[in-house]
């Protein structure tokens, strides 16, 4: 089954929340999933299915109740905050539905933000790389603007550039078209597709739209916290 090496492996992953009345809500149940290098995959499912929780697990934003998350051979659950943050900084790039740019920073500063949190010596100049990405995404002329002064499509491009600045192994996109009109949304999906095809960047996208999911090479369907189908 395994064709290329796994970027991340989820093994027997459970996530449970204790609710106010002490009943246990199971968000993820016994998930086993491998994301391989160079894949463009979609996690699909209705709201409340657990797909966002799954994405937070893959993005190292949350820790499982049971099970393992293996990244580069390490179980993430055993890392402390510093190590997890460092790993998050270098290994994953996030693109969110609400763009989540900081309005008080300029476009360029937003893109460079992950670099300020880097604790390793970079083999590239973040400044040059930011310029290159802005050029590539057609937002170079806006580099000194602020996020609330540019269009939604442009904001999402900034977010993608920010996700790519650290040369991550994985780009995680959570409903990246959710706040965009159809045309702009399509452009963003095209952008991901292009990044995946021409540069081999691994992309995992969470969506509830089948139409968008079908543009990817792999659809992982989640229902009630379980993987119900995994089509390649």
């Amino acid at each position: 089954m395994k064709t290329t090496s796994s970027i991340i492996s989820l093994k027997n992953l459970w996530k449970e929340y204790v609710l106010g009345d002490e009943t246990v809500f199971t968000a993820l149940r016994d998930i086993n999933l491998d994301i391989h290098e160079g894949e463009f995959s979609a996690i699909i499912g209705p709201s409340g299915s657990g797909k966002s929780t799954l994405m937070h697990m893959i993005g190292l934003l949350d820790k499982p109740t049971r099970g393992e998350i293996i990244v580069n051979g390490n179980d993430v659950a055993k890392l402390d905050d510093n190590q997890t943050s460092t790993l998050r900084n270098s290994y994953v790039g996030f693109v969110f539905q609400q763009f989540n740019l900081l309005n008080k920073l300029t476009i360029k500063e937003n893109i460079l933000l992950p670099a300020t949190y880097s604790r390793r010596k970079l083999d590239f100049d973040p400044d040059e790389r930011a310029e290159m990405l802005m050029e590539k995404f057609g937002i170079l002329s806006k580099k000194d603007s602020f996020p609330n002064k540019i269009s939604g499509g442009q904001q999402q491009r900034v977010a993608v550039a920010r996700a790519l600045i650290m040369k991550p192994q994985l780009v995680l996109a959570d409903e990246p078209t959710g706040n965009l009109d159809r045309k702009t949304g399509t452009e963003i999906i095209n952008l991901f597709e292009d990044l995946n095809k021409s540069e081999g960047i691994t992309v995992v996208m969470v969506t509830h739209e089948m139409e968008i999911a079908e543009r990817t090479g792999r659809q992982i369907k989640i229902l009630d916290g379980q993987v119900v189908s995994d089509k390649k």
Partner: protein
Amino acid sequence: MKITIEIYLLLKSAWADFKRDKVRTGLTSLGIMIGVLSVVLLIAFGLGLKNYIRDQFESLGANLVMILPGAGFSGGGNPASLTGGAEFDEKDVSSINKLPNIKYVVPVFIHSSTVSSANEEKKVNVMGANEDMFSLLNLKVHAGELWTKSDVEKKAKVAVLGYTIAENLYKNPSEALGKTIRIEGLRLKVVGVSKKIGNQERDEAAFIPYTTTFGSINTKKTFFAIYLGIANQDLVGEVKESVETTLLRRYDKDKFSVTEQSEILSSINQIFAILNLFLIAIGSISLIVGGVGIMNIMYATVTERTREVGIRRALGATRKDILLHFLTESTMLSLFGGIVGLVLASAIVLFIRNWFPVAVNVFAVILAIGVSSAIGIFFGVFPAKKAADLSPMEAIRYE
């Protein structure tokens, strides 16, 4: 290099937030500003008062010994007991006059009263003494002349007016010369007006031969104090001893004190060191209140910016990064307030200096800056910790 960029970004981000909400920034800093302002001003006034009182004593000249009622300043006694001690009289003056090495003996009668000219009535400090008082106080005439030893002997009904009181009574101080004034039924001829010396007590005094005050203003014929001018600094100790021995024949040990200038100065320094501490303590209360204000706002800020915290965490910020981020903001807020307060206080001090010797010293500046940064850090830690402890996942979903 990396650290400088990080600090730069922290400061820049804090600055951008302050600019976005100038009113809130101003109001938040206001507490610290008022705190620092009050601490610095209180210290300035404490120092000013100390300088003022010290100057009063120093202007009396170096080789001075004061005989005061009560246990006085000597031997760590309670200065409050200056009143309720011995009441000196002419007998004391003459027995002290017989002692060696004393250049002059000035008995001083001090009394608050009113003085009236033909048209005016004013408050006045009556100072009854002998002619040596003028050299003791280093008093020079502005107009007319000072009364003399023979005036004292003759109980002459003469007065030298302080510059301000003469001005208050006659508009032009020189006009007071030759005029008759009344103090408690005593009619006195103004023979001189002293030069302005910038000391309210003396500028508003009427100097009268002590003999003249006897029986009218000074019914008991007593003196508040006796000042001694000593011929030579080295003899001060010796004179003190002989004076004490003489006075002990008439009074109990704790009814009077014989004090030299330097003792009084060191007592003043001691008293004001305590007073200053007390003033700082009062001012510190407002600093703490200001700090609590900052803490409140920082808590609100953390809640308001939960999502930002989530974003930063998602991008790789550690708990420590977030902690530093919010600490920088609270410290900057506090420091900003502190610096503004200091500048305002300095301006006020410069203004007041025209009338009163207030002073801002290095200690006050260091205290203001140090304490306001410390408050920013101390009261910022709790909100910053709250921000740092937010779960990245929950923070980023926060609406």
